[in-house]
């Protein structure tokens, strides 16, 4: 039975620990199985290692101990099938929106014509087909993040890792991008691991929320969010939504208390 769970998981953490060099333990005893189609959000105080979890999955950093399987293989070998969206849009300033979107294809040696068509398609998906020739400095923060999403989706990843992608945006833009992200997911069908500081964003997007604690980073509690997808903006106004937000906030308060004590 555990074997079946392991093979069916998109991501499987077994007693994973992580420290950087000789530093203190950043993550301790992480056990986690991400199922296909999950939208898992990691939330917790600063220093709880939530971004580190994503870095381990992406293969940017290796786990120090324990087993980590991504898409049935090692994190590095699974890179072709996953994409990372960074906190800042990380667009190359010397490329247009289109040039940035086609970058993953260019790195794979796809022909120019094919790249252009695909980039156009992805930019249309995020509603930016009209500004495909703009350079990043001409785009607003929200538009840059849309380009970043489009770029991440050009290779149709099975797993999308998002590290506080909307953290720097104003709340209205953030809400709209949350809705768009879910709409895109209806079509693109990726599994997502998402890091945020915003409780309401976590509840709106995810079917599972992992509340993490710091020193060392560990999973404190899991909250299931059972609102069916597709979710619409008006979900946020319902009492059930508010109840979930309160529940997650209460858990966060628990893990943040020791710091103030």
């Amino acid at each position: 039975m555990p074997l079946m769970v392991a093979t069916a998981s998109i991501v499987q953490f077994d007693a994973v620990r992580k420290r950087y060099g000789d530093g203190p333990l950043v993550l301790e005893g992480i056990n986690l199985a991400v199922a296909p189609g999950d939208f898992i959000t990691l939330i917790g105080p600063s220093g709880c290692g939530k971004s580190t979890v994503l870095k381990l999955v992406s293969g940017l950093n290796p786990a120090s101990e324990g087993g980590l399987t991504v898409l049935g293989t090692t994190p590095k070998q699974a890179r072709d099938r996953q994409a990372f969206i960074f906190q800042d849009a990380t667009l190359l300033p010397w490329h247009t929106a289109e040039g940035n979107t086609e970058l993953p294809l260019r790195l794979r040696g796809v022909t120019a014509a094919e790249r252009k068509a695909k980039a156009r398609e992805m930019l249309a998906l995020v509603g930016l087909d009209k500004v495909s020739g703009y350079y990043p400095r001409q785009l607003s923060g929200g538009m840059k993040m849309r380009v970043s999403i489009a770029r991440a989706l050009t290779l149709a990843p099975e797993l999308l890792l998002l590290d506080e992608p909307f953290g720097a945006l104003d709340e209205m833009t953030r809400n709209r991008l949350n809705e768009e992200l879910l709409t895109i997911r209806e079509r693109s069908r990726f599994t997502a691991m998402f890091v945020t500081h915003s409780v309401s964003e976590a509840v709106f997007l995810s079917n599972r929320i992992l509340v993490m604690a710091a020193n060392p980073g560990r999973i404190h509690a899991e909250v299931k969010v059972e609102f069916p997808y597709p979710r619409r903006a008006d979900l946020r106004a319902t009492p059930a939504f508010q109840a979930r937000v309160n529940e997650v906030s209460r858990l966060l308060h628990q893990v943040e208390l020791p710091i103030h004590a």
Partner: protein
Amino acid sequence: MKKTPSILLWILPVVSGVLFVTLWYAVRSGSGLQSWILPTPGEIIDAAWREHTRLLRAAGNTMVGALAGFLLAGTLGFATALLLGVSRSLRAGLYPWLLVLQMTPVIVLTPIIVLWAGPGLPGIITVTWLISFFPIVANMTQGLVSTDMNHVALFRMANASRLQEMLLLRVPSAMPYYLAGLRIAATLAPIGAIFGEYMVGNSAGGSGGLGFLVYSYNTQIKIPALFATALTSCLLGFIFVAAVSLLNWAVLHKWHDSYERDDH
């Protein structure tokens, strides 16, 4: 696209220039110095006009050496920086020696250069190259190792090869640094060529360059003409800087923040 410069940007240099020239005249009349020790700006302009055929021909000759040395430094500097950017050990192994090369006074090296490259244009080009090479290498190398770590992570995540990372990420993001290095080299190249001509002798192009004129006006105690030669070499420097500014604009204006306009 029209850019409206702040009017002050134009007025201030003119104001400071007028003040400087006034001060110059004041010092000259107040001190009672002779024209051959401190010529007035007017006397310098006069000398420049009298000697303009020689000055222009010499400037043309100097330009050849300066341009060749500058282009050599620009291409070799780019290539060397690429090499240094590729590996930490190459950087550790070679960079100190580049510094040593830069710190050795050119005046010491010039006789050796003449010995090896021969007098005339080859020697002048070598001196020019030597003096303008290091700022280009230093800037470009700094640019290659200053790439945004998130961009590097993005490339690693996309399984980019080292070559792709270099050509598609590090080199483009180092362009502002490279161009800054070229700009410094642009001010140095004419100086290098003139110094080279002064040291290497008058054999370049028959009539000699500005460096030869410096030598000849100095021995003839034609001091206003010497000042006019300095003025001419400044103009040469300005041509170089203007050319690099144009290149800078062509490469960067579309995307780089230094060309950000306030109107959007």
